[in-house]
């Protein structure tokens, strides 16, 4: 125990720096990936067959590709030189978009058809029906599972060590490579991840309760 504590005292600056990179990476990936997920979800619910088919293929490829593979495809595949952080951000955003589109599509589909029909009968355009009726209610239903996904995405930032992004896992590893205190450093990293994810889960629970109250 004291050894772990000593490692923490010695390396906490570097580890907290890594945590900060992880948090920023998750935040950026979600900031880009969630709206993209909404766009894909709307596309996948389209009545135009060709568009729908195309979007569904994109989603399935995105979901079928492990995040670790996605990271390396983006890192090695984009012809211009980008920093590891930007590559990781793009790759995780793509994964987020593909996964959340399915969650959001489920939410959109749970909006009763009668309400959509009422909107059409009132003369509202398809766009208005989507914007004013389907999306607000569908997203609300999707919020709890989306928050769960956000927590998973935060954990998935640890995969970015593979393309040398100085996030928490990669920092823990590089310190351990010098000190050989592998277990200690990964325990510390694990505790730091847990602090974030457990707090986020508590928030999710509160939000879920709040949403239920107003239904």
């Amino acid at each position, binding site marked *: 125990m004291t050894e772990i504590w000593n490692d923490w005292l010695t390396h906490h600056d570097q580890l907290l720096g890594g945590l900060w990179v992880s948090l920023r990476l998750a935040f950026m990936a979600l900031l880009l990936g969630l709206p993209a997920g909404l766009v894909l979800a709307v596309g996948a619910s389209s009545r135009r067959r060709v568009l729908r088919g195309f979007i569904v293929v994109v989603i399935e490829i995105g979901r079928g590709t492990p995040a670790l593979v996605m990271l390396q495809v983006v890192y090695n595949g984009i012809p211009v030189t980008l920093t590891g952080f930007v590559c990781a951000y793009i790759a995780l955003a793509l994964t987020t978009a593909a996964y959340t589109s399915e969650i959001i599509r489920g939410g959109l589909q749970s909006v*009763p058809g*009668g*309400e959509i*029909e*009422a*909107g*059409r*009968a*009132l*003369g*509202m*355009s398809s766009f*208005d029906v989507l914007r*004013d*009726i389907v999306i*607000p*209610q569908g997203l*609300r239903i999707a919020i709890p599972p989306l928050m769960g996904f956000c927590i998973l995405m935060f954990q998935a930032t640890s995969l970015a060590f593979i393309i040398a992004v100085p996030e928490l896992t990669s920092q823990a590893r590089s310190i351990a490579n010098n000190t050989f205190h592998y277990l200690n450093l990964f325990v510390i990293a694990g505790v730091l991840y847990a602090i974030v994810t457990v707090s986020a889960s508590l928030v999710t629970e509160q939000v879920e309760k709040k949403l239920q109250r107003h*239904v």
Partner: protein
Amino acid sequence: MTTSPALPHDAIVLQNVEKQFGDHVVLNNVSMSVSSGEVVALIGPSGAGKSTLLRCINLLERPTSGSITVEGVTIQVDHSIKAKELAALRSRVGMVFQSFNLFPHLTVLRNISLPQQRVLGRSQAEAEERAMTLLERVGLADKAKQYPGRCSGGQQQRIAIARALALDPKVMLFDEPTSALDPELGLEVLAVMRELADEGMTMVVVTHEMQFARDVSDHVVVMSDGAILEEGKPHEIFASPSQPRTRAFLRAVLDRQ
């Protein structure tokens, strides 16, 4: 000579309307017309095609063939229909559903004001003023700030009527507006509809409320198996139906009530 708008004219004309779902013929060459200010009760056994016919009038359901004229504007269904024509048709035709279909995430006031802003381009202030006027008219001004989920079924249906009226439709369609309601809640909805009829609104009402059909409608249309079986004045249809199937239907409904 100018024609006064008060003179009765054809508000709705359906000509040779056919509707098939796959190879199931649901409407078989239906033609009918409704004069302005007229209240038509559409009755008949379940599965006769009443809802489908009603939904063809505002093209929620697109007929397989035929033409639909509402307030002088004709739509040939086998031609392509522009989004603009469709929106114009639907803004002239209000519809009230059996299941109310209010937007549960919006307040009662917003349910009524939002479509006005989107469809007619009214300002929010204008739309809310109109919404409040209509809520007062259906006796629910105090519910403006509530969410629909907090209102009884009868109240929700009156709100749905107000929402449709807010777009100043020329014609109102009702598809079994009281079927999902307890009888006493149905009465408050029927009272609003009766008032609307008295004010001269053109209405087509699919209903199992024979009392309403008898007392309020000007014309009764009986449907069976996707076709009009017979039609006439309410007292004729109810007192001496010419078709045995109408007689059987009326007996069954009146027995239940």
